[in-house]
């Protein structure tokens, strides 16, 4: 097939209407869920990762640029807003437990959040990545909207950060259960919370597959890490860089 021919096709199918992008996204997601079930709900068969892989293949084959796809699919993307508000419902249900465990959760939050940023900064610096990459990766465990704001503030590239945030979420969702299993962490509240702190919303989606309790605590971890990082990273990152270069 010639290039001109495929982009013409893409134009007809994707160009004007959001319908193809929406249909493809939901269709691919259903296939991904089906694969997830076939794989006995293994975290390795992560529905987000499978959906993304299938859609990237589809877009490459049809010669559709990402911006054209997102123009249509943003209606699904928009629902993230109401979904975050909806997190208040499971959180509300866990409230008595949450109130009692506030100090331990804060401890885990600070430790996990600092580890995520410090390890990512250290590894990219050791592997001699440019400063822009280091700044972009620092907020990678933070939920995308906050991470992009932080990235812009500390000299990173927000769109690069967004992609790193997604990859972080998928890694956390896939590897979280194995890591926690190896460490013999069995409590759903602690499991969920740790996945939420390290792997934000995609981790929270995975935690809801474990149990509603894990999901609620993951949502809490995500929100707490977002708020903490929004205030700490813009001050801490330049300070750390200044200290390292002196």
């Amino acid at each position, binding site marked *: 097939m010639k290039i001109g021919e495929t982009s013409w096709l893409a134009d007809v199918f994707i160009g004007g209407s959001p319908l193809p*992008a929406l249909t493809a996204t939901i269709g*691919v997601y259903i296939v991904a869920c089906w694969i997830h079930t076939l794989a006995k709900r293994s975290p390795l068969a*992560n*529905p987000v990762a499978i959906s*993304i892989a299938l859609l*990237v293949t589809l*877009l490459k084959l049809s010669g559709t640029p*990402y911006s054209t796809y997102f123009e249509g*699919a943003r209606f*699904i*993307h928009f629902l993230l*807003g*109401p*979904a*975050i*508000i*909806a*997190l*208040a*419902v499971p959180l*509300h249900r866990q*409230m*008595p*437990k949450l109130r*009692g*465990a506030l100090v*331990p*959760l804060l401890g*885990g*939050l600070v430790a*996990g959040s600092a580890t995520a*940023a410090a*390890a990512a900064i250290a*590894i990219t610096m050791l592997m*001699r*990545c440019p400063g822009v*990459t280091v700044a972009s*990766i620092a907020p990678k465990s933070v939920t995308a909207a*906050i991470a992009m*704001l932080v990235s812009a503030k500390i000299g990173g590239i927000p769109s*690069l950060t*967004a992609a*790193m945030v*997604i990859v*972080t979420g998928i*890694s*956390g969702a896939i*590897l979280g259960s194995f890591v926690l299993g190896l*460490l013999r*962490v069995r*409590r759903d509240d*602690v499991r969920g919370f*740790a*996945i939420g*702190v*390290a792997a934000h919303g*995609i981790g929270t989606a995975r935690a*809801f597959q474990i149990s509603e309790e894990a*999901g609620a605590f993951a949502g809490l971890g995500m929100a707490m890490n977002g708020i903490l990082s*929004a205030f700490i990273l813009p001050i801490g990152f330049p300070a750390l860089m200044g200290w390292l270069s002196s």
Partner: protein
Amino acid sequence: MNESTAVRAGSKPPTNRETAITRSLAVLLAFQCVGELIAHFTRVPIPGPVIGMVLFLCLLSAAPALAQEVEYVSRGLLNHLSLLFVPAGVGVMVLADDMKGQLLAISIAIIVSTILSIAVAALVAGALMARLERKQTRLNAPKSEQA
């Protein structure tokens, strides 16, 4: 609205699901609007939906009956949270194209730091929680049972 939710509270889920859907969506979107407005005017670096979620949580503590009302739609959204991340996630293809030389370093950094972060967060929170519970059982054994 409060009267009707009070009547339904504790009983079976709302019989008229369609009303529940439109009402829940209205509530969720209204809180998102309020959150976005606060974020916009106070210029705090926190996204509007996160602020809206905290406010909604406060309202739910004050009026617990509302939780039942929005249950159906909330559950639906949260059960398919994965789907909502797909459109943004496909954007990773742009990263892969732009960052060819650094892909290995970035991947290693992301995977290793995420594993470490989960481990550290879980170990610290778990250890502190176990300590707190030991303390509580020592201090007042009957009260800690209710959790």
